[in-house]
């Protein structure tokens, strides 16, 4: 509502050459984050998860792959027969659940970050190219994007996985090869939008080099939309990994991932619930915090997105 816009600086003398200072962007960002309840919650939870992931080696944890066949299916410590050495119990091969969950975070977070980074890089490069060049190249690229988008993502991933195989690195490739089209679409649309903005026109009138135009004017301004999408996408990718694990194309031993633990433990959900429930909770909490943070980021950076 127009009446609520507070523009107290535009009355007569306010246009005089007095320029008010504002807090730095980072502080502004952090302050806004702290003020939002969901943003703060998501950020703190995620920070905790990331710290546990990075500091796993420093924590006094059991070896996550060491089997103790005599200690199989130990319940968590607060249940009957639980042991303090295995606070969250053990799995069907007598491996420490707590250690596995903390180490498993690495693969899950790694897949999330790497696949998003890779697909983002591919997608943005192609999207920017298509948006800037236009013409037949744009047409061809967009038809390929249409085709890939018309194939359900999971299905496409499985077909790609047939070629790439399963495991951590192939999985990242598989997800990236499916996922990049999202970024292409958004990057292209954003380039087309930003390209028409007056400051780009102003730069063009000044005969700014096209590389500079791209790096200084276009990329920084399409970034917010992409950052928001990428943040939310990390959550989706982590979930995707668990679905692929369910179908047998996920991360494979000796690597550990939550999706894999969850998928393997689903058989024992009724008998040894902790084997899949704890990784499930960890995964849900992580994705939950990522989505909260992403939603907040969207509100903060880019109110135009739905």
């Amino acid at each position: 509502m127009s009446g609520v816009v507070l523009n107290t600086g535009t009355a007569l003398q306010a246009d005089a050459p007095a320029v008010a200072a504002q807090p730095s962007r980072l502080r502004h960002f952090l302050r806004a984050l702290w003020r939002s309840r969901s943003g703060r919650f998501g950020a703190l939870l995620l920070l905790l998860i990331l710290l546990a992931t990075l500091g796993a080696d420093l924590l006094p944890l059991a070896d996550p792959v060491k089997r103790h066949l005599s200690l199989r299916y130990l319940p968590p410590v607060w249940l009957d027969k639980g042991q303090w050495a295995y606070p969250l119990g053990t799995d069907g091969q007598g491996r420490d659940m707590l250690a596995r969950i903390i180490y498993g975070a690495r693969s899950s977070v790694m897949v999330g970050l790497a696949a998003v980074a890779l697909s983002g890089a591919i997608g943005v490069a192609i999207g920017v190219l298509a948006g800037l060049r236009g013409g037949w190249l744009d047409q061809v690229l967009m038809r390929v994007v249409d085709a890939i988008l018309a194939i359900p993502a999971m299905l496409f991933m499985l077909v790609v996985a047939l070629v790439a195989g399963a495991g951590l690195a192939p999985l990242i490739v598989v997800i990236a090869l499916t996922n990049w089209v999202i970024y292409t679409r958004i990057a292209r649309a954003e380039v087309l939008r930003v390209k028409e903005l007056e400051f780009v026109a102003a730069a063009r009138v000044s005969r700014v080099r096209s590389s500079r135009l791209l790096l200084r004017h276009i990329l920084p301004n399409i970034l917010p939309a992409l950052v928001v999408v990428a943040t939310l996408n990390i959550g989706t990718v982590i979930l995707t990994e668990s679905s692929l694990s369910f179908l047998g194309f996920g991360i494979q031993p000796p690597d550990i991932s939550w999706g894999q633990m969850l998928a393997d433990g689903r058989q024992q959900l009724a008998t040894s619930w902790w084997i899949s429930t704890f990784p499930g909770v960890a995964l849900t909490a992580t994705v939950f915090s990522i989505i909260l943070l992403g939603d907040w980021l969207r509100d903060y950076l880019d109110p135009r997105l739905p």
Partner: protein
Amino acid sequence: MPTSRRIFLKNAAASASVAALPFALPQIAFAAGSTTLTIAQSNDILSLDPANHENNSTQSALVNLYEYLVNKEFPNGKMVFTPALAQSWKQEDPRTWVFELRSDVRWHDGKPFTADDVKFTVERMKGNPKLLSAVEKFRSVEKVEVLGPHRVRLVTSKPDPLFLHNFVGNGGSILPQHAFQAAGSEEAFFAKPIGTGPYRFVEWKKADRLVLARNPQWWGGAPHWERVVIRAIPETATRVAEALSGGVDLAVNIPPEDIGRLKSNADTGIVAFNIARNFGLHLRTEPGVVTHDARVREAIDLAINRQELADVVADGYATATRGLFPPEIPNANTRLTATNSFNPDKARQLIQAAGAKGAKIRFGSPSGRYIKDREVSEAIVGYLQDVGLNAQLEVQEWSIYNARVGSDSHGEIYFWGMGSYTDASFILNMGSLKRFNPHWKNAEFERLAAELPATTGEKERQAIIWRAQEIITQDRARIGVLYPKAIYSVNKRVQFAGRFDEMIPAEQVRRA
């Protein structure tokens, strides 16, 4: 082109009619008291054509619909052929067999079963190389002669000691000549197939259910069940849940950790029994890899604690072995046992001697293909690490895994299960061995493989086959690890003991 378009239209129409099928009102059919037998399999039935699938569970359903000339039974752990559609058979000379067929058998459409149907079944296979069973069935048959309505003579190109095996298992089911001709095309016949079995075809909804109904005209007497429903439930947790909730009477492929739950449930119990499968490891032997050194291969063999694998990892639902075939299989070398095979100290010494300490060994394993396959592999990798090898697990989804084996691009060791075979001479089939271990060579083994086809005497054959199994095991081209057991959940209202060949003839499942 016009024909193909018509086919397309017909297909489209068929699927449209499926779409129009009304969904019945909700009703939860719990089995108690019903005359319907419901079986949950872990695989989709692939085809109603018994000669065009390579799938044990598909055949385990089709045995209710079609029948063989002879059956295989395993009383007291020994295989024997028993009469089925053939009352008796005799061998006129090493190359000539005559079958006397039952005269009281009728097809589901009421037409009598005759020797022409046998001839048709055999010749159909020989005329169509695309049929999957064509690579194993009736290959030695030269000609089929109908001697009378219920008598047929088959002549082989050379003496075939495994001849009777042709008439059991995938591709051995006898099909009706007249119905094929009446239907016009194979596709039309298999849309609504008929056989001679105790149950006739009602409906097949792919990936969901095959429904069969009692064939009151069956030559063996009135069948036990009104209806047999064979469902495909690929997800194990769901299959177990169906068993627990009484949704199915029989559920196959139950993981050991669910046994307690099924046993403590009021309505369910479990059966576990030996089956014609074995788990083993294939080791690379070619120069340039660390397992080229026989000492390393021996160390690997010695490092594996098979008893622990059987008792703990498989929860006791497997037998430890170094052998390649379960003892029920004809000509299985029963001297190859796991007794005292575990010797990690000696394994360490051998590795030391071979200078392979810390050597990297890639260990390929499928996941979820066989019961506990990955867990067994993980355990074996642990044993190998215990004796000083840097073993690394490489798990792959089955189709990718299979392709790697097919293209010889797996690591030093890979895990492979085998099953459903005729007899232990399978191991001498150089064709298949070349696929699974293409670089292994052994002069004696090759000589034995060359001798075997010409050998007809039971004793001589057994000697060759036993020796071949020894050679492979000594060279550790493939080393046996476990004979797994099958575990079924059985609702207490029915009784079923399970079969070594994993067939599920509904007639052998009885109401309790």
